[in-house]
């Protein structure tokens, strides 16, 4: 059974994740989990570092938005 509070928390998490992805920033926690699981030798970047790297990457590709 999920309580109303948990519902609210998951909705908020969804909203934040969507909003960040709309700006080209994928989920940080997912990335950290991925690094720990598959690349334990790599240094885990802070959220700030991760954010900067993604910000640069967003405007390098082609397309990404519509008219």
């Amino acid at each position, binding site marked *: 059974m999920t309580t109303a509070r948990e519902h609210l928390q998951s909705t908020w998490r*969804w909203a*934040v*994740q*969507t*909003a*960040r*992805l*709309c*700006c*080209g*920033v*994928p*989920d940080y926690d*997912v*990335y950290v*989990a*991925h*690094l720990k*699981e*598959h690349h334990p030798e790599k240094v885990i970047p802070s*959220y*700030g570092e*991760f*954010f*900067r790297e*993604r*910000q*640069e*990457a*967003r*405007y*390098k*590709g*082609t*397309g*990404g*938005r*519509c*008219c």
Partner: protein
Amino acid sequence: MNIATEKSSPAGKILWAAISIVGAWCLGVVALRRGEPINAIWVVAASIAVFMIGYRFYSRMIATKVLQLDPSRATPAVLRNDGLDYVPTDKWVVFGHHFAAIAGAGPLVGPVLAAQMGYLPGVLWILVGVIFAGAVQDFMILGLSLRRDGRSLGHMLREELGPVAGVVAMVGVLVLMMIVLAVLALVVVKALTHSPWGTFTVAATIPIALLMGIYLRYIRPGRILEVSIIGLVLLLTSIWAGAFVAGSPTWGPVFDFDARGLAWLLIAYGFCASVLPVWLLLAPRDYLSTFLKIGTIALLALAIFLAAPTLQMPAVTKFIDGTGPVFQGNLFPFLFITIACGAVSGWHSIIASGTTPKLLSNEGEARMVGYGGMLMEAFVAIMALIAAASLHPGVYFAMNSPAALVGTTVEQAATTISQWGFVVRPDELTQIAKDIGEGTVLGRAGGAPTLAVGMAQLLHNVIPGEGMLAFWYHYAILFEALFILTTVDAGTRVGRFMIQEIAGLVHPELKKTESWTGNLLATAICVGLWGYFLYQGAVDPLGGINTLWPLFGIANQMLAAIALLLATVVTVKLKRERYVLVPGIPAIWLIVCTLTAGYQKLIGPISFTAAAQKYADALAAGNMLAPAKTVAAMQQIITNNRVDMVLTAIFMLLVVTMTLFGIRAIMLAWKNNHPTTHEEPYVALASVPAATR
């Protein structure tokens, strides 16, 4: 979610029958009731019913029969999960991301321009177009990319149609992008001409963005939500302050520019914004515009539901005969060119083969994201059309007709427009300008101001208040200008990389994106290309939009035709010839529309050729034609029209070339007795370790 076993229960069947009946009834009211104005709610209800039926039945057929999506098959996100670009993501998050990426100024501007023919042609084309063309394109390209490691449209074209076809398409995309940037920048120019209030608020976004950029970089790194709220508050303050700036005898003139001045400012700004580091200006504006866009679309929907406006524009006007003032040309093919985004937009094929396919965790979800996302965009287009059609038609035509046709004073405009059958008094035009806090509403073509007035009136109905109409008007202008300028910055950067890539084929040194020489050179070329068309629009005798929007429409539909051709070729290559018409019919329709429109823009009374000839003849006879006052200006207009002529011819050549490549690929594949497509091999989702997913 298992699509293959999704079957209707008896209750479900009754429900869908009911939705169909309600939809048909509403559509009947929209289409058949004549003489008395109808309420916008009929249009909204008809659209929702059509979208639901299209989604439930047609998209399901595409998913199960044409694309044969398989929920048991591992997607690129699962197979290549790197936590950054390829990440299996919740379907609703992907949906939100995809919608934010495809929704732009296009679906807001096109339907407003098309409203000159009445609301009915636009509504019908958006509904039919999205179900059978636009959403099919987005969904199928997404499906194809999903089966090909999330490859881009260009890459898929190279693989399936051949390397030459890939290069041709790449050139097409670059030219399309230059036209998109020019025409969108022109929308901003038309909205801000001699509008100190609007110009001030748009200018204020630059220091606000710089502040946000520094905050995000150094003060609170990566706190997008926080900084966006700060940005929004500052933006609203700047709208409020704009009224005082416009009213001030010292500051008002500082922000008062004519179209040429604004065009030069935008060109200079576009150059600076795309060579500066992205974190400083481009990215923060992008965040702000993304959230403002989604928020404003929601606000518009809410306002339409609450205000439930009556559509004052007739269902069909006499301008379906091609004599309309907003854009020239008959209903066929120009309606289908004018409303591009919202019904079918080629640009989406780039997004559907960009980030989105790298995020889906299950093939079955492509239907909701690809097809469903496009239905949402069509709904935005319907709302824009409602906002425009709920305006007084006299006001609509005063705003959107070029001065060459209706004159430059409210008296002349009111007389001309009343003669067209849309009775309006000069004082009504003066009053509306006063209400929205502007000097005049005349000559504001381009969709944004019309939509802003429509939105302002809707919002004003919901939240009344003294002087609020002017606030809402400038809010709507700011919101459109903000995301158009973000598109211009980001587009210039993308264009720059494309130019560097092409230049790199000749001189490898130029390809290095870190090199300042290559960077500045490519940026200058890119800005020069769209800047030329923007400036051309600013000095155009018919106000610019009238001339450039059809070019944009032709280019955008050309890309859609190419994307649908790719889908057709792959369908045949997979030996699913039975379903070849699903992408084939819209592909043929768009090829016919673009070629007919292109031909009419090349030869005949509404062509660029005829416009160039008219000015050339006048020049030879020693006369000056408005708005040119000098021989040089006359020659400029002649050159501009000849450039547009050449560009139209290039687009037509591109369409024909790609069609021939497509037909060749289809014929080869048809003869083969086994599938010949380049799909990646099947990997079962169940075989991928759960931890990776």
